[in-house]
């Protein structure tokens, strides 16, 4: 097992080099550069050229790439060209926000998605199945921007039950000094119930918005995986033996159907951790997605490069964890 993990981690290296090369090339293929963005509409070509020289953008691309790669090896992702903030500082501040939101969204997706899929499979072709599957189809198709604003207007502006955006209220935030950057965890560590409530209430709307699509996907995958398993002979045998129906469904059915569901969860979670640009923008959530997006608009090369590498590593590692979890879910699987 240890050997397998090591092998997978070593495999990460060519993937990462591939990613850096791809990101670097694509980014430099897009017309426009940071000097133009920094100087604005009125700058003269001479001013742009002088700034490009200062930023090192006039060097040949391969030299720029190797310079960047050399620094990455030393875990030096550089500084934002636009703001001067070290990339590593931005990632350590923003990633907890993205992680917290992704976990909350995933919890919603799992708590609602898996039972919905099971019910739909068990009551196949019933009105409940039709209702759940049509809802999940709507869930997959909902534009995130529209759903987010709808939730804000309903629950924050009209009903005033929940805050419309941000991670923490202004008054609560004055005295709150985060320890880890994961606000829910920090407030619980400090046994600060008021802050915990405030932070959780801020999580609800963005988590619902972000969790809707994974919820719908997980519900649909669960349904189809369960349908396949429930038609197996051993299920019929279990029923014939008089095992209670819910036991048949959960123990014999769900456990065996869980491999494809688990793969989907891993992929969805990896995607969520990459940052959700729209959700983060609508809810002013200071996460990694909106940061990379702003970096792309401003042609802030170090931000995009550093951000994408970080997201890619996270994605690959999550998938490694998913692969490893197969042995626990199905003891017949062994890694060599």
């Amino acid at each position, binding site marked *: 097992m240890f050997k397998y993990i090591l092998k997978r981690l070593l495999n990460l290296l060519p993937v990462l080099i591939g990613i850096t090369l791809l990101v670097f090339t694509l980014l430099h293929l897009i017309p*426009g550069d940071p000097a*133009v963005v920094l*100087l604005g509409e009125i700058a003269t070509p001479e001013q742009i050229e002088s700034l490009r020289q*200062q930023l090192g953008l006039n060097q040949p691309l391969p030299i720029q790439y190797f310079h960047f790669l050399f620094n990455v090896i030393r875990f030096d992702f550089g500084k934002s060209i636009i703001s*001067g*903030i070290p990339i590593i500082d931005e990632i350590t501040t923003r990633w907890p926000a993205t992680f917290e939101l992704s976990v909350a969204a995933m919890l919603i997706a799992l708590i609602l998605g898996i039972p919905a899929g099971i019910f739909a499979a068990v009551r196949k072709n019933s009105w409940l199945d039709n209702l759940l599957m049509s809802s999940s189809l709507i869930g997959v198709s909902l534009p995130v921007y529209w759903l987010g604003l709808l939730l804000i*207007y309903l629950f924050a502006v009209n009903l005033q039950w929940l805050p419309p955006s941000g991670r923490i*209220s202004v008054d609560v935030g004055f005295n709150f000094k985060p320890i880890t950057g994961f606000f829910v965890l920090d407030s619980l560590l400090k046994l600060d119930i008021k802050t915990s409530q*405030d932070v959780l209430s801020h999580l609800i709307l963005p988590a619902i918005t972000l969790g809707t699509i994974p919820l719908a996907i997980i519900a649909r995958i669960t349904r189809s995986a369960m349908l396949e398993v429930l038609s197996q002979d051993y299920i019929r045998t279990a029923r014939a033996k008089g095992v209670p129906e819910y036991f048949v469904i959960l123990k014999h059915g769900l456990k065996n159907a869980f491999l494809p569901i688990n793969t989907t969860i891993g992929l969805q979670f990896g995607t969520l951790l990459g940052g959700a640009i729209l959700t983060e923008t609508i809810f002013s959530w200071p996460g990694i997605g909106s940061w990379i997006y702003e970096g792309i608009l*401003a042609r802030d090369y170090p931000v995009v490069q550093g951000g994408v590498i970080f997201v890619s590593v996270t994605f690959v590692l999550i998938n490694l964890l998913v692969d490893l979890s197969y042995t626990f879910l199905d003891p017949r699987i062994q890694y060599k």
Partner: protein
Amino acid sequence: MIDYKRRRLFFLGAVCAIALLLNNCKSAPNSDRTTTTTSPTNQQVLVYGSGGSPVNLEPGNITDGNSLIVQQQIYDRLLEFKPGTTDLQPSLATSWSVSADGKTWTFKLRPGVKFHDGTNFDAQAVKFNVERWWDAKNPNGYRNAGKSYEIWQQIFGGFKGDPNSLLQNFVVVDKSTVQFVLKQPFAAFPAAIGSGFFGIASPTAIKKAGANYGTPNALAVGTGPFIFKEWRTGDRVTLAKNPNYWQKGLPKTNQLVIRFVNDPAARLAQLRAGQIDFTVDLAPDQIKEIQSDPNLVAVPRPSFNVGYLALNTSYKPLADVRVRQAIDLAINKQQIVQAFWGDLGETSPHFIPSILSWAQSKNLTKTAPNPQKAKELLTQAGYPNGFDLELWYMPVSRPYFPTPKPIAEAFAADLSAIGIRVKLNTKDWAAYIADRKKSPGFQAFMLGWTADYGDPDSFYYPHFGPGGTVDIGNWKNDQVIQLLNQGRATGNQAARGKIYAQIDEILHQEAVRLPIVHSQPLLTKRKNIEGWIPSPLGSENFTRIEKK
């Protein structure tokens, strides 16, 4: 079986725990709303919804509005603008004067002012700040760390040693007097040095923070009404009242929180939910929603911008002034402005907005569109059947063109009536602003400008002065250049008004950048916010704003 019962009990228990923790969810945002208005500590907390995060808090090293508005609160400049106007008034300088030749500007500094770190503001502090902007070799400028201070170059021609640099020398006369010695007269110099870019920062703080000065984990120290407390990346900047502010009784609020909310729809939702108190740069079509909410008040910012359609003279049909005039006559500007800006836009024949009416020509009046005359002009120019025109529209929304594509479609419809067949085009914003300057550039394109300082020079010089016409085929008019230099050299406003009126008339005749609109950016506040007077220049300090 027992195993399952236990699990169910555990699940129920977990659900109950979460429910208990959240049982106050309903009151959480309300408490946010009410505590900010009723609890004694938060009574004077003001929350401003900014259109995005500042780039940095270092004066002279930014050009974006989100950074400027935060810097306005932390720093003072030598001069400032009277609230709601472009008229200058004393700030860190108590008085200013110019020598007879118009080249030496002397500023008397305010005594007894201290930076937030307790160090003294004096002539040496001004020198420290000016030299790091102006002198590319100054070690305190940290240019080797990528800092560029390009706005200095854009406004004052160049850095130290550059033949185009307007500044020749900076002199500390005594502890409270400084002099800027220019190579040529520049009447708008006080307005330029008083613009929001050039706040005076503490030399001690800059030396302490080094190249990190003004970034989230470092310092930002000025003499301004608010003291920098905290910058949470991607979320907010928190500032506290400067108890020793030199303007007694100001600021009126104890805490100022600047939250970054990029999306205008999300900003308005937060304002309506009471999470922010006032905000800027909403879209003109949001006015109906604002008016329908009794808790909100729309506050238009006086216009200090121009949205224009540029015609590139390096393309054959547009090289003929009659063709350009025909396009000007064909576009129904009044109707377009009414449709896309409503009451928040004004159409006029002038390139500069009406707040600078002293520099506008009285001979130019709004003219109705005249397709018939436009067609005659095209015929005279040799294009009786029109021609193909590639018109570029911006891919982003700006106050001067909030919805560029539909506006471009309206232009195309008007132009098709005189036989000009328009092909609309766009590209990514960074490429758009760069490629229009690459020869031969775009044939016709939409763009706009919000001036840097309160003077007509800030509109005309960057667009029609030396090097400013690359994007319109290096169009050049010697008389305009001569008048622009005269405008810079003349001190008397009445005399300058006549000079700029002539420029106004020539540009109207030449029709290379057709002014379409001077728009008022849409700002909104909650009803209980008082004392906010938006500056036409795009950012103002919040010293007089309070929550009632």
